[in-house]
């Protein structure tokens, strides 16, 4: 074995739980004991040496290796076949535009929202259908959980330490979904963000809790999106006025209406870009009059441009429920998409 991590001996699996909990190395839920065999199996599946550099957290210069990532993945419940997705997720989080330190240290209390695209979803048994935002399947649940353990154990993002969240939200336990590409009239999210359709990919976004909405009383795309825009505008008023990435989750029942009307993903993005915006003076309606100042007529769009809207197909077959997933804090953190198996920092081979 070439694993370099410190080893501990415990009596049994129950003792392992107390060992990790007592050191604040968990999220409070039971963990799978990371034995050398289990960790090595993850590395073997992904064909990564233990010392492989996944990335460096740019603010605190914290090095993250494949071995340490695999240990946390095993603890979260990952099988070896999930590990390449964990690698892609953390690779994306470590890209500078994501600003992982600021996002995870902030009092704003966001979580890392992870969206999986491509053939890998079906290979590992992911579902973008029933209960899409509530731990719909094993793979998305454990991959999302790994993010939390990685933040705790490799970046010290524990409550009261680096994590200064005032409230946080339940997505911090696990906030990962697969897109329902099979039942989607548009190109996939990752394809929309520049990844070839037959490649698998991961998109990460520093995100607040999902805001659920419902509109079962129209078939017109504009009216359906007006409900989404109203929810986005509520977020602009109640939370943060700054534009950034927003995600909207559209279930099959509502997607059918877009399909019937011939609306593309781009049409949706442009409609929301044009309509999800408020005037600064609206802050006075919600108790924030003190910060309106002399700029009451200044307009604030939710999106800097249409591309900042992540349109995601997911949800069970029945119900006109959708969700708006707001950004942590405007454009300070950018959503990042990475292809599974890609090595962003690798040098091209010489021909």
């Amino acid at each position, binding site marked *: 074995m070439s*694993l370099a*991590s*410190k*080893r*501990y*001996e*415990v*009596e*049994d*699996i129950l*003792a*392992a739980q107390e*060992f*990790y909990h007592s050191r604040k*190395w968990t999220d409070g839920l039971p963990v799978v*004991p*990371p*034995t*050398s065999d289990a*960790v090595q199996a993850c590395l073997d599946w992904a064909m990564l040496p233990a010392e492989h550099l996944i990335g460096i957290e740019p*603010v*605190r*210069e*914290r*090095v993250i290796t494949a071995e*340490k990532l695999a*240990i*946390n993945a095993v*603890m979260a419940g990952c099988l070896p076949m999930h590990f390449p997705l964990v690698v892609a997720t953390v690779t994306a989080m470590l890209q500078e535009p994501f*600003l992982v*330190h*600021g*996002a995870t*240290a*902030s*009092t704003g209390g966001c979580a890392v929202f992870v969206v999986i695209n491509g053939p890998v979803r079906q290979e590992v048994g992911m579902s973008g259908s029933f209960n899409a935002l509530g731990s719909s399947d094993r793979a998305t649940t454990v991959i999302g959980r790994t993010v939390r*353990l990685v933040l705790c*154990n*490799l*970046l*010290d993002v524990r409550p009261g330490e680096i994590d200064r969240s005032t409230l946080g939200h339940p997505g911090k336990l696990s906030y990962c979904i697969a897109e329902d590409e099979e039942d989607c009239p548009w190109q996939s999210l990752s394809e929309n963000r520049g990844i070839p359709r037959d490649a698998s990919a991961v998109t990460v976004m520093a995100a607040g809790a999902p805001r659920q909405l419902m509109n079962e009383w129209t078939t017109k795309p504009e009216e359906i999106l007006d409900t989404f825009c109203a929810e986005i505008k509520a977020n602009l008023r109640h939370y943060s006025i700054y534009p950034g990435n927003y995600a909207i989750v559209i279930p099959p029942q509502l997607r059918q209406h877009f399909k019937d009307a011939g609306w593309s993903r781009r049409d949706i993005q442009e409609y929301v870009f044009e309509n999800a915006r408020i005037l600064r003076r609206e802050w006075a309606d919600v108790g924030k009059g003190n*910060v309106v100042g002399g700029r009451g007529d200044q307009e604030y769009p939710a999106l800097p441009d249409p591309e900042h809207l992540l349109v995601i197909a997911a949800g069970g077959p029945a119900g006109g429920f959708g969700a708006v997933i707001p950004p942590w*804090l405007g454009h*300070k*953190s950018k959503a990042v998409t990475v292809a599974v198996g890609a090595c962003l920092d690798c040098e091209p081979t010489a021909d």
Partner: protein
Amino acid sequence: MSLEILDPTHEGDSGSFALASRLSVLEGTTVGIISNGKKNTIPFFDSFEDELKTTYGVAEVVRTIKSNYSAPADAHLVEEAENWDAVVAGIGD
């Protein structure tokens, strides 16, 4: 049967750094404040500046603001800080 398990943490492998040397007196010094720039920090650091000057005899307080309050200080601010005797990391909310 016992179980051998692995350490999931970074095991303290972060880059080493040294604390800046401390000043023995504040009187006559130049103190810089790199504020995160949030709105409520302004009156707070106004009072702090006043306290530094009136109570501790600080000669000059240089007030600067980061361009992104969630990111590290801009390179030009770090460079400017080399001209000061002490720096205050101005985190406020």
